């Protein structure tokens, strides 16, 4: 059975904002570019994407790079992304770091740049305003 994508399971929002909460286990089985595609497809549809466990630093770097290639005047101006600072390897062994097993567990919110605005951010609280298109 094909796996449902976030937009399959809902009706088109007319007066509201669609929020896709994507679990860590859903993301775990995806390659980096599949994760980035899943996020950007949702965001370009005007959805707010919330990742339970966030992205690795390398994936974040690629997300910025791919986002830049998709920006188009009057159509898509980029993303707003919010998450907590990456915990500096406090719970990781040297072997984990050597093997590239990085802890990425940090709630992350991503939305279209013209619809989400950060009101406040510190290392324990992120407050954002989400508006309709």
């Amino acid at each position: 059975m094909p796996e449902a994508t976030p937009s399959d399971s809902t009706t088109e929002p007319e007066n509201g904002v669609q929020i896709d909460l994507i679990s860590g286990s859903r993301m775990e089985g995806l390659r980096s570019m599949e994760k980035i595609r899943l996020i950007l497809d949702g965001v370009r549809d005007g959805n707010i994407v919330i990742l339970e466990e966030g992205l690795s630093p390398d994936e974040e770097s690629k997300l910025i790079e791919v986002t830049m290639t998709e920006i188009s005047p009057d159509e898509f101006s980029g993303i707003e992304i919010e998450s907590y600072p990456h915990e500096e390897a406090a719970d990781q062994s040297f072997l984990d770091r050597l093997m590239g097993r990085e802890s990425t567990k940090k709630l992350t919110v991503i939305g279209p740049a013209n619809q989400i605005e950060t009101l406040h951010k510190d290392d324990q609280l992120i407050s954002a305003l989400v508006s309709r298109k």
Partner: protein
Amino acid sequence: MGLLTNLRDSVSRVTDRLFASDDPKRIGIYGPPNAGKTTLANRIARDWTGDAIGPESHVPHETRRARRKEGVDIERNGQSVTIDIVDTPGVATKVDYKEFLDHDIEKDDAIRRSREATEGVAEAMHWLREDVDGVIYVLDSTTDPFTQVNTMLIGIIESRDLPVLIFANKIDLNEADIKRVADAFPQHETVPLSALEGDNMDEVYDKIAEYFG
């Protein structure tokens, strides 16, 4: 398979650094738009080579291509440290051409600038993943450093085990708050400076020699 690839990459990175220790280090100057990266790159290049790297401007995304100055010899305490400076476009997660219209730029030119800016940011990210040996991260000390772009970029730099210095720029301005910058990234050394006025450049060069020599 992924495990072995990661292990091979890690070992390769370490050996590359060990055996290439005599080569000039490529130091990327990173940070958000309008932090003063090009002003700093020009200051360093002028002080040690006599040439500038690129035009400075108060308009965001003035630097839309990574620019490189090779073989910059910095002399400290009787020793010489050679670095290649890479001045990179300011990193952002969004670029809206309408922001350029506020700077008296015509729409067509604004769209062209925004397209070049997006290409520049993508290029800067690519350099960070592939081609720099160390990072100078420049922040405007009059603005809030606790932004997502800064948090992400510092995380990316840390994940690649690159040596990094945080430069709190624009200390010549009254609103500068060096402590706020230092508190945002306490795991890294913060050096205050004014690239425009040349304030505290002795410490800047001492730290560059110490971290990247």
